[in-house]
């Protein structure tokens, strides 16, 4: 605790103001921010060099060329930026740190300048004119620092007249860095745990089984109802794949209990899998195609092994992006699943559908102690969808919240839906060695939150992302909010849902 207070005092928390302010530039303000590098063993497990390779400059430049050849997005994005400045005041890390290299275009230029130098006529012959730079140690240091200050949230892409997405560029830069032997410890270690054990936490099957058994006991004690948390049940209708944080972290676990109660109330048989006990796929953060596919394929294997007919994904932002946008590509086709349901389906889609059909009963008054707002997670908002219509990712979670709470208020319009601010911990940055960045990057979201707290007495932030929940729990206190102010959407469902006549509540 003492250590934490000391840490808190060291970080200069951005001052929140009523009107959103764009800071004046403070060059180099975050140049010191660097995550721990991945050790040799972790690098090797992911198929990357275990230390910086001798001719890394050449390897990096060649890798960049390869990646551009393989990605239309990269090719177009690297050519098309006109430096109009539309994105310059849109990144939460820039707004929170004032470091100009955290402006999306400046971050892109860290890589674009190298691309220009080696792969364009203008950069080869007139480097000074177009800001082209050689691949040097100094550039690599800048990359390591600032491409680990991007949560790949895509907010800049929403405002760019060409849709240029810094996330794609930051993924490519991290891919190149991993490929020359400079990986990031937090992300790469987690990917290696999934390869070895099946989830981010390295939670083996017996521990998972124990956890689920004790959850069954807890829920039985609380409600008097036998709500099951099945594991590896062959022939179940639905395989649920959820971030492993849902198995024990607070407030994530309330969400998992919520899913179980919804399945119970709907009478749909379901199971978790010890082989695919992780929805999360951090490989996306480092742009590694082979790791992305290798992590995802466990889910296909588990679904086939268990003989399920549907796959439902729990509350997790980037995992939903991977599931919604990439799974069909990476681990499809899903001809062995029931085509009458979306493949994959989000747990919010599942619950919302049941609510729509009147299949769930709620006692909203149970949540009357809460005045709720909803935090749109970036990857759900700007990189995926729920339901049949564009924007379903905004309406469906809110409809669920309104179905189980009486008091709901949205944050300011320029901070929600596709304009939502990242929690500050996404994209593989949810690690204590980047705590200063996380606290500062949360400022725009905290600012919007402060407004609804003051205007409407909001005391609860519902989220549908494991990273958002962990990040909020950590940074809320820095902004004088209680850490338990954040909760799962299905935590609210869990509280309000009525399971049957024998119900009792403590």
């Amino acid at each position: 605790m003492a250590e934490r207070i000391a840490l808190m005092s060291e970080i200069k928390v951005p001052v929140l103001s009523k009107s959103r302010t764009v800071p004046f530039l403070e060059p180099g303000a975050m140049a010191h921010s660097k995550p721990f590098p991945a050790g040799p063993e972790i690098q090797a497990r992911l198929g990357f060099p275990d230390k910086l390779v001798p001719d890394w400059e050449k390897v990096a430049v060649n890798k960049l060329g390869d990646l551009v050849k393989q990605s239309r997005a990269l090719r177009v994005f690297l050519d098309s930026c006109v430096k109009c400045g539309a994105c310059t005041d849109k990144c939460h890390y820039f707004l929170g740190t004032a470091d100009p290299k955290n402006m999306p275009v400046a971050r892109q230029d860290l890589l674009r300048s190298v691309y220009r130098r080696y792969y364009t006529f203008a950069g080869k012959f007139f480097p000074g004119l177009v800001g082209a730079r050689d691949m040097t140690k100094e550039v690599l240091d800048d990359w390591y620092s600032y491409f680990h200050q991007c949560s790949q949230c895509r907010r800049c892409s929403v405002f760019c007249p060409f849709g240029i997405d810094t996330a794609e560029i930051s993924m490519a830069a991290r891919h190149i860095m991993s490929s020359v032997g400079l990986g990031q410890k937090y992300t790469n270690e987690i990917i290696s745990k999934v390869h070895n054990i099946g989830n981010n936490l390295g939670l083996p099957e017996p521990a998972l089984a124990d956890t689920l058994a004790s959850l069954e006991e807890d829920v039985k004690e609380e409600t008097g109802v036998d709500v099951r948390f099945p594991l590896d049940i062959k022939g179940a209708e639905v395989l649920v794949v959820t971030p492993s944080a849902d198995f024990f972290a607070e407030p994530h676990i309330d969400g998992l209990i919520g899913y179980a109660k919804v399945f119970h109330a709907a009478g749909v048989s379901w199971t978790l899998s010890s082989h695919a006990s992780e929805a999360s796929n951090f490989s996306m953060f480092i742009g590694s195609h082979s790791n992305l596919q290798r992590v995802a394929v466990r889910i296909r294997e588990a679904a086939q092994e268990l003989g399920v007919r549907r796959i439902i994904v729990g509350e997790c932002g980037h995992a939903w992006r991977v599931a919604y946008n990439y799974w069909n590509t990476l681990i499809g086709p899903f001809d062995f699943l029931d085509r009458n349901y979306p493949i994959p389906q989000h747990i919010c889609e599942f619950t919302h559908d049941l609510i729509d059909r009147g299949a769930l009963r709620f006692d909203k008054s149970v949540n009357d102690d809460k005045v709720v707002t909803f935090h749109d997670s970036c990857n759900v908002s700007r990189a995926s969808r729920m339901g049949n219509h564009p924007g379903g990712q905004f309406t469906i979670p809110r409809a669920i919240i309104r179905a189980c709470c009486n008091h709901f208020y949205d944050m300011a319009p320029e901070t929600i839906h596709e304009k939502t601010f990242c929690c500050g911990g996404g994209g593989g940055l949810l690690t204590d060695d980047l705590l200063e960045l996380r606290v500062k990057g949360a400022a725009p979201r905290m600012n919007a939150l402060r407004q609804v707290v003051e205007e409407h007495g909001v005391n609860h932030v519902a989220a549908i992302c494991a990273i958002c929940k962990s990040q909020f729990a950590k940074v809320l206190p820095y902004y004088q909010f209680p850490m338990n102010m954040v909760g799962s959407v299905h935590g609210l469902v869990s509280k309000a849902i009525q399971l049957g006549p024998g119900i009792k509540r403590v």
Partner: protein
Amino acid sequence: MSVVTVIYTLLLYLAAAVFLAGITRKIISYAYTPQPLKIPTTPAPTTRIGVIIRVAREVILFESLFKANKWTWSFGWIFHYSMLLLLLRHLFYFTDPVWSWVLAIQPIGDYAAAAMLIGLAGLWCRRLLVDRIRYISSLSDHLMLALLVGIAASGLAMNYFDYPDIIAVKAFSRGLITFKWQPLSAIPLLMLHLALVAILLIVFPLSKLLHAPGIFFSPAINQVDNPREIRWVSGWSAEINNTEGKKHGGTDSAHE
């Protein structure tokens, strides 16, 4: 033929050739580079027609820029549309007989040129005065603005200081596209105007002016949001085979 005529004829052919070859090469490279994953920035249209409308809104209205910054949008929109009008107006020099609507827009030339200069001046002021945009600007960004200002200003100035013989200029430009070369009257402002246009054409495929074709190929804007309904594969993702005993899509060395 005068030396000026020969030099300008060759220069403009060279510029047109670089422009056409460069842009064609770029468009081919954009078109043939695979996009292995679905990455539309959502909410995105769920149909092909919806995507066409989305791209059109971006190209015609600069919708995202409007959401981002009203000043940049205003100046940018004024600049692009007055330039478009001026380009159309210049069809006068290439069509014979001149299309009626091209004749009809001839009188707006001065106003459009003034509007283009206002738009460019606004954008340049932002580049110089807003600290964030000043930070991201390189020398080439300023030179590009200077080039465009030079083209608009020299064109406009001709109408006031050095009015060229329109018929002779038209004979020259018609001569270029019909390969029956005609003399160019050596009026300094006209020579400046044409030289700057030649530079712009040459620079176009080598610079950020590629945003013009680029916007049509941006996957964030032009992809249909239907990954669950239709399996998307392209490039390295097309090599993935999950159904024939092969579990993984390849190795790092194969496609990373």
